[in-house]
């Protein structure tokens, strides 16, 4: 097993970067072998680009279905060395520094931010005043429907649960009103932006 030498440069040297490019890309992971209950999702921004990741609570990060394991160590001069492993012997080391509110990666300032993913609710307003339709934020399977037509709901109430990317996503009401239509049933496969539930403002009825 090849192990790269201890990081001695701030930037990946050109020849090393060339070798990395010639490697086969990291394989997609089998999500079934992971403990899904422990996976937590985060929204990340790095240099203006946004991406959603899943963190296993230990050392694994899943991005676009690929697993990146990491080990972080602190060097004696205050830098952090993040070692990212994408396969046997495939290690990449990055030098990270925190100073004065700024983050430096490989000696360069970067813009990096993350927060737990919030359920991304999309809704469309129908032509009728005060009626909103909640859309599926991502493709998946409806595993549970918590409301029925005629129920009154408050903002934050769970409407239904959508399993997507092996994760349970609670779809919450972001509008107060009465359920006037349910477009889906349990175990139904839905696509992105498919209509799920219609809520009408009670004042209008």
């Amino acid at each position: 097993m090849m192990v790269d030498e201890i990081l001695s440069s701030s930037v990946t040297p050109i020849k090393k970067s060339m070798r990395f490019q010639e490697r086969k890309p990291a394989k997609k992971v089998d999500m079934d072998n992971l403990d899904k209950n422990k996976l937590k999702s985060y929204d990340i921004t790095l240099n203006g680009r946004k991406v959603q990741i899943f963190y296993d609570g230990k050392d694994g990060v899943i991005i676009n279905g690929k697993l990146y394991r990491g080990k972080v160590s602190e060097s004696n001069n205050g830098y952090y060395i993040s070692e990212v492993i994408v396969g046997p012997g495939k290690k990449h080391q990055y030098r990270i520094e925190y100073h004065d509110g700024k983050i430096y990666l490989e000696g360069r300032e970067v813009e990096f931010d993350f927060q737990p993913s919030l359920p991304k609710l999309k809704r469309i307003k129908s032509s009728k005043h005060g009626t909103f339709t909640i859309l599926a934020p991502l493709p998946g399977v409806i595993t549970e429907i918590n409301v029925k037509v005629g129920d009154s709901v408050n903002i934050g109430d769970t409407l239904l649960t959508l399993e997507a990317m092996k994760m349970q996503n609670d779809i919450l009401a972001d509008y107060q009103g009465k359920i006037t239509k349910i477009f889906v049933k349990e175990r139904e496969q839905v696509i992105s932006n498919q209509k799920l539930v219609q809520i009408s403002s009670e004042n209008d009825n």
Partner: protein
Amino acid sequence: MIERLLIANRGEIAVRIIRAARTLEMETVAVYSEQDRYGFHTRLADHSVSLGSGPAIDNYLNIHKMIEVAKDQEVDAIHPGYGFLSESTEFAKAVINEGFKWVGPNPEAISKLGDKLQSRKVASKVGVPITPGCEEALDSNKDALRIAREIGYPVMIKAAYGGGGMGMQVVRSEDNLIRAIKNTKRQAKAAFGRSDVFIEKFVEKPRHIEIQFIADKKGHIVHMGERECSIQRRNQKLIEEAPSPVITDEMREYIGNKVKELGKSVGYVNAGTAEFLFKDGEFYFNEVNARLQVEHPVTEMVTGKDIVIEQLKIASDRRLSWKQEDIQMNGHAIELRINAEDPISNFMPSFGKIKALRIPGGMGVRFDTHIYEGYVIPSDYDSLLGKLIVWGEDRSQVIYRSYYALSEFVLTGIAINTPMHRVILANKQFHKGNLSTSFIEDNNIIPYIEEAFNRRVAGLFLAGLQTTKVVLPNEFTSSKWKQVGKYENSGMLI
């Protein structure tokens, strides 16, 4: 000599022209749309004048307004830059008719090069190698089938009045020919107002090679060697270099002389570029760009000659400063176009405020740009933020220097395309000089950029968790990263 110059453009090229004009101690007048009120060129110029708000057609493309400003400001010359009005013969004629000096090619020469079919004819007359194809616009389907059979498939159907990578269709077999002609005619009619089309041999995976030339009003002309611009995506150039790794001195002299003959035959004045496709040692003439080009700096770096200064001198009726033997290639130069677009998301453009900006430096490193820290990129214009232009003694040195110059470059606030440049500069085929216009697809550049991005995200995320010692998950709902500085300053947590 011109005393007061109007720069009818914006962005990095307006800045570039102002710098050249200043060197010649000309007064400069900039124009701006209201969206560009705080553009760098408005501050750099001696005077700047608003062209009002709205789309470009109401300001940067408005011939009437531009001429009014020129009169009002009592300038004696106008430089159009590239894009916008630079290739409008109507504007060039209006400028000249109103008694201003036009810093660009004479409208007569441009109309002689005219459309793509006509420039093919002019080129072939002086012996410039052209792509095999038809001489006239296609008349009948029978002719089309015969010509296509003669030159052999695949062929390209091209709109005679097309441009910008539009109005072109590749046909790989006879079954699709007639339908493709019909489609291209319809598109050409809609986009360019005229439906004339012609057939050319389609050159597969060619290199893009172009020859810079410049001529004065007294009949002197020099070529300034080639630039290779093969690294493209959807016909948009991304990386340019000079000289090309595959062009020998003999080839340069041969094609350079042909281009000079072409320029002379139409009485061309000022700077221009003849574009060619290049495959297996053969040049195939494409078109003449009758203007200053984005990538002109790579030629400047290897020849040591300032093309924009020379343009201004020629427009001032001066004699060309150089003879052909004064133009020598010294070393190698690369230009990386820094664009506000995300290569991983299909080059989606990004807009917004530039937060941090650190521009690299050192021997042979030049950055032509109009951006600054706090600059807000308007969504109205193209995504070019600047050009990192690097010189080296040879191709290998300039690649290494570019890679490490780029590694110093910081720009935060918006997504930009530097990760793509970084990957290409460390690509083995790029080092070997194995380039073609489909380089990015053929070498899987985009998937690797994403892979490298993901690794860094993972590295930063895991380091971030460790650093602030925040217990995960669900301990926080808003970003903690903004507080890193606070923790540090108060001596807590870190």
